[in-house]
């Protein structure tokens, strides 16, 4: 245990005294989590509502696709996004490869399936009569969507938490599209990889790991509270 204890003793002061590198990585990570989740919500919520409420052909196929996209390996997303963003790629003129913006794009794509797949699941979990009754009473499309959102809010919130969790812990896509550049577009998770693999700087890796664990625990705590309030609702998330 001597080794672990020594490393911990070296790591804790870094956190307590607010080491500037660790603070900046934490700030970048929080920014990525907020921006990417917000973008994923802006894009995904309307799609999720349409799948959950709509009565159009191909709705089931869309839902299967949304569920399947949860299984998309981040490595693939990273490679796909990078090939689009490289100078010779389709969006190369934006010149955002290996920048924080590229990380936002990749993380948004990875967070999107959570919102698109879990929102309809939450809506379909509502009492079946509710939405139909509102329809029969003449609610318009917007009113219907707002009603469904309000009633399924716990499920939607859980989807948001899952999306945030994935943006916090994803590394593969972040490393590929961002290049894992220190003090620029590193997140807590990708910083751990570079501190261990490139620098063998264990105290820093451990300190960053403790911060990441704290953030994840906060999310798990939120999810637990939500699930207890929702009774039977069980949503899990895994990210990496």
């Amino acid at each position, binding site marked *: 245990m001597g080794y672990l204890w020594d490393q911990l003793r070296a790591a804790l002061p870094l956190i307590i005294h607010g080491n500037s590198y660790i603070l900046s990585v934490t700030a970048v990570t929080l920014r990525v989590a907020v921006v990417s989740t917000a973008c994923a919500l802006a894009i995904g919520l309307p799609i999720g509502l349409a799948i959950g409420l709509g009565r159009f052909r191909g709705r089931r196929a869309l839902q299967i696709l949304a569920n399947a996209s949860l299984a998309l390996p981040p490595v693939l997303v990273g490679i796909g996004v990078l090939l689009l963003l490289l100078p010779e790629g389709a969006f190369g003129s934006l010149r955002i490869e290996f920048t924080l913006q590229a990380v936002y794009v990749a993380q948004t794509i990875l967070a999107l399936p959570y919102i698109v797949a879990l929102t309809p699941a939450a809506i379909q979990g509502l009492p079946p009569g509710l939405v139909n009754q509102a329809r029969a009473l003449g609610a318009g499309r917007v009113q219907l969507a707002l009603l469904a959102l309000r009633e399924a809010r716990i499920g939607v919130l859980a989807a948001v938490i899952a999306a945030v969790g994935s943006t916090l*812990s994803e590394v593969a896509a972040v490393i590929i599209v961002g290049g894992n550049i220190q003090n620029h577009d590193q997140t807590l998770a990708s910083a751990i990889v570079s501190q261990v693999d490139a620098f063998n700087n264990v105290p820093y890796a451990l300190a960053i790991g403790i911060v990441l664990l704290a953030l994840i625990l906060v999310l798990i705590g939120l999810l637990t509270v939500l699930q207890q309030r929702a009774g039977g609702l069980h949503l899990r998330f895994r990210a990496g």
Partner: protein
Amino acid sequence: MRLIVDELRVALPLIFHGDPYLLSTLWFTVQVAAISTAAACAIGVPLGLALGLGRFRGRRTLHWLANAGLAVPPVLVGLWLFLLLTPGSVLGGLGLLATRRVVFIAQAVLAVPYVVALTAAAIQGLGGGLLSQARALGAGRRQVSLLALREARVGVIAAVIAALGATLSEVGAIIIVGGNVYGYNQTLASGALYEAQAARYADAVALGIVLSVLILVLLGTLGAVQHRGRGIRLRFRWTG
């Protein structure tokens, strides 16, 4: 799009002509998926059964832990394993870091929460009367376990598929403890990450295509299993 087409034109022949690096990486990946998942099942199914069936104190806490385990970033699991296995630490004498064996271990550790949490969920999803009736009719612990496993088999198979998927696409843990050594202990996912970082995009795309085929096969199997089991819907996400 031109870049993607160009890379594909180089990548596809690598697959069709059976590039030796690609084949050996594929073989290693399949071995890791099979053995790590088998190990995770050996540990996880009994735990999941105990959680799903048992009526002991602390069961709720254990259940919470299993679900929370699903949310722990693979990078953190990799970091903890690294801290235990590094020379000078508790298990440093084993000399496992940067070997092939450590990749199996890391992926098995990551797969265990899937098996435990999803097996327990599948068993809890069984009709309430079934197991109580079996107990009332005098079934012993073993018989009740076997009955529960047989009745919840769709959910258990889904758990195994989710675990397989995780071992296929996680990279966060294995690059930390395995070091992502070219042609030695790389999986398709970590190999693709490596090639993308080395700017050998055609190789990254080739590995990525093979990985997607494996994932699609798993998704198809999951879809077929769930279709036959109707009602049970498990989603999974695996990441790197």
